[in-house]
């Protein structure tokens, strides 16, 4: 099962967020040197969302993620080294190098880079958990951009109709790739959920403790059989959508960087504790990439057809 220490003290929350931050900062540094093949979508600036929400997870719960999944995966309790190896295309990666940045399956964590399509799958998982009376909760992360996909609304309808144990988390980072939300979203985000009878809470997300508290109330309510609910977190990514593709106003980015969730939470820690965590996490990140870089690539012989042929 999940290896994560689900402790909720301030130091642990800071460590969890910093692990995501430093892991991805290092990742972005590696792109220009050509060490990374492929792409990435970073979570820098949104760390408090995953850490706060997933602090409420219980054993057996399921997490469904998207293209921007590294932060969710680390907060879920996934191995940083296995994630580094996956991004570097190594045999030791989470999926042996087959999935890469956007396609991760480990334990009860599922990510796919095609937006929207994961949402009915999450509904089906919640259906099964309910049918088998396992009392698990399905956390489903989507973004503002995914609200443009029609299948999301099919899914909200079914989740509510069947009163399933599913927790929708919308991370509104205000941009779908390069397009600001005002150019692709009509109406109201919360009303989208409410139209299907799903209670939705909106929050200007910057403080991991506030997010955790909200998620705690919502997840407890869903666990008692009240059906699906949503938490809309208005957030911001400090880094580009992918690698170098940032066309946003630098002043705007600076404005949001001034309300960095890590800095906000770090202020709660003693300097000594903060320093210790920063040293330890920097070392962990360094080691994760170093080990991954020394791991072998998958052998061509490891490629197998997915299904047997007929005769």
């Amino acid at each position, binding site marked *: 099962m999940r290896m994560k220490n689900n402790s909720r003290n301030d130091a642990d929350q800071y460590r969890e967020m910093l692990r995501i931050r430093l892991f991805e900062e290092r990742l972005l540094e590696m792109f220009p040197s050509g060490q990374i093949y492929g792409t990435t979508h970073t979570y820098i600036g949104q760390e408090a969302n995953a850490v706060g929400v997933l602090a409420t997870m219980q054993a057996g719960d*399921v997490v469904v993620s998207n293209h921007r999944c590294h932060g969710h995966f680390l907060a879920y309790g996934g191995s940083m080294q296995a994630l580094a190896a996956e991004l570097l295309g190594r045999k030791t990666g989470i*999926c*042996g190098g*087959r*999935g890469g940045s956007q*396609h991760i*399956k*480990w334990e009860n964590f*599922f990510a*796919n880079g*095609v937006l929207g*399509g*994961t*949402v*009915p*799958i*999450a*509904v*089906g*998982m*919640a*259906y*099964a*958990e309910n*049918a*088998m009376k396992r009392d698990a909760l399905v956390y489903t992360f989507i973004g503002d951009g995914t609200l443009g996909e*029609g*299948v999301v609304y*099919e*899914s909200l*309808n*079914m989740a509510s*109709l069947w009163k399933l144990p599913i927790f929708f988390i919308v991370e509104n980072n205000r941009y779908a790739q390069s397009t600001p939300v005002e150019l692709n979203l009509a109406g109201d985000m919360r009303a989208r959920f409410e139209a299907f009878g799903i209670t939705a809470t909106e929050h200007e997300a910057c403080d991991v403790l506030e997010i955790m508290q909200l998620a705690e109330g919502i997840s407890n309510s869903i666990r008692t059989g009240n059906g699906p609910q949503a938490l809309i977190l208005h957030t911001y990514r400090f880094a580009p959508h992918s690698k170098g593709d940032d066309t946003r106003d630098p002043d705007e980015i600076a404005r949001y960087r001034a309300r960095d969730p890590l800095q906000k939470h770090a202020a709660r820690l003693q300097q000594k504790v903060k320093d210790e965590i920063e040293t330890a996490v920097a070392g962990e990140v360094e080691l994760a990439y170093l080990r991954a870089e020394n791991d072998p690539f998958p052998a061509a012989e490891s490629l197998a*057809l*997915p*299904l*047997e*042929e*007929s*005769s």
Partner: protein
Amino acid sequence: MTTVREAMNESLEACLRESSEVYFLGEDILDPYGGAFKLAVGLSTQFPERVVTTPVSEAGIVGVGIGMALRGLRPVVEIMFGDFIALAADQLINHAAKIRWMSGDAARIPLVVRTPMGGGRGYGPTHSQTLEKHFLGAPGLRVVAVSDVDDPGALLHQAVIHDDDPVLLVEHKLLYPGTILPLDEAGEFDIVRQGAGYPTYLLRLRGSPEPKLTMAAYGYMAVLARKAMRDLAYEKEIFTELIVPTQLSPFKLDNLCRRASRTRRVLAIEEGTRTMGWGAEVSARLHEALPSSLWVGRVAALDMPIPASAPIEMEVLPSVARIKNMAQELLV
């Protein structure tokens, strides 16, 4: 005399009875309606918890099936008309077909999506198509075609109970009312089953001499092919044989190749449009395997939408007459 519809309905019932992990989802499948093609009749009455009527959300319900399968259930999702499978293409191609392989076998998806395809009922351009060719060759997705030969219910049972990978099960709607052709009482045909699970069948007219031509057809086209075989034998003294595969993708042509190496003449018959179709792949693979002295012909739908009006619908879709003509051309 069991019809294909009865065989499929009984098999669904048997699957639901056999395993409490089996769930059946679809639009309008509850009693007393029992599904648009009546394959679900009686099931919701017997298994009210596990026969689930769904909103009109084809992409959504295939996704729900994938999610259920990932968490240990064995869902069967009915798509009311095969034409609507286009709505679920993302779910089948980008999710169901990929998840096992991407995860290095860490996840399995025992999902069956069943759907009636095909024309001949006057339903017009968007309710008559044969769309499975768009899913053939999608790695990780098994595409299986029901036929009236042997036991179509066993094919469904294999997919639902024994297959841990996603299956798109294609059922031609003209097969439903027809009676099945069991191996031991196939009348004028000798039928040999080759392979287990999703078998391939070899049919010949009983007592006929060595065949001069090998036909290959699946689903309802195998019914037309049998009629053509009979006519060619009785009217022209042209003796043929027929290969009927059930697993269309992934597809290995061993049985057909073995026969083609003897007859050197193959006629591939499909109801999908001709261009970039199943028959094109059959022809290409046969020519790769048997590079010299081989003649392959194709009968397929014309490359146009299927009209609603009966006489012009017949013009677009393959017919016994066209199969007979093409067979004779190959033998000139």
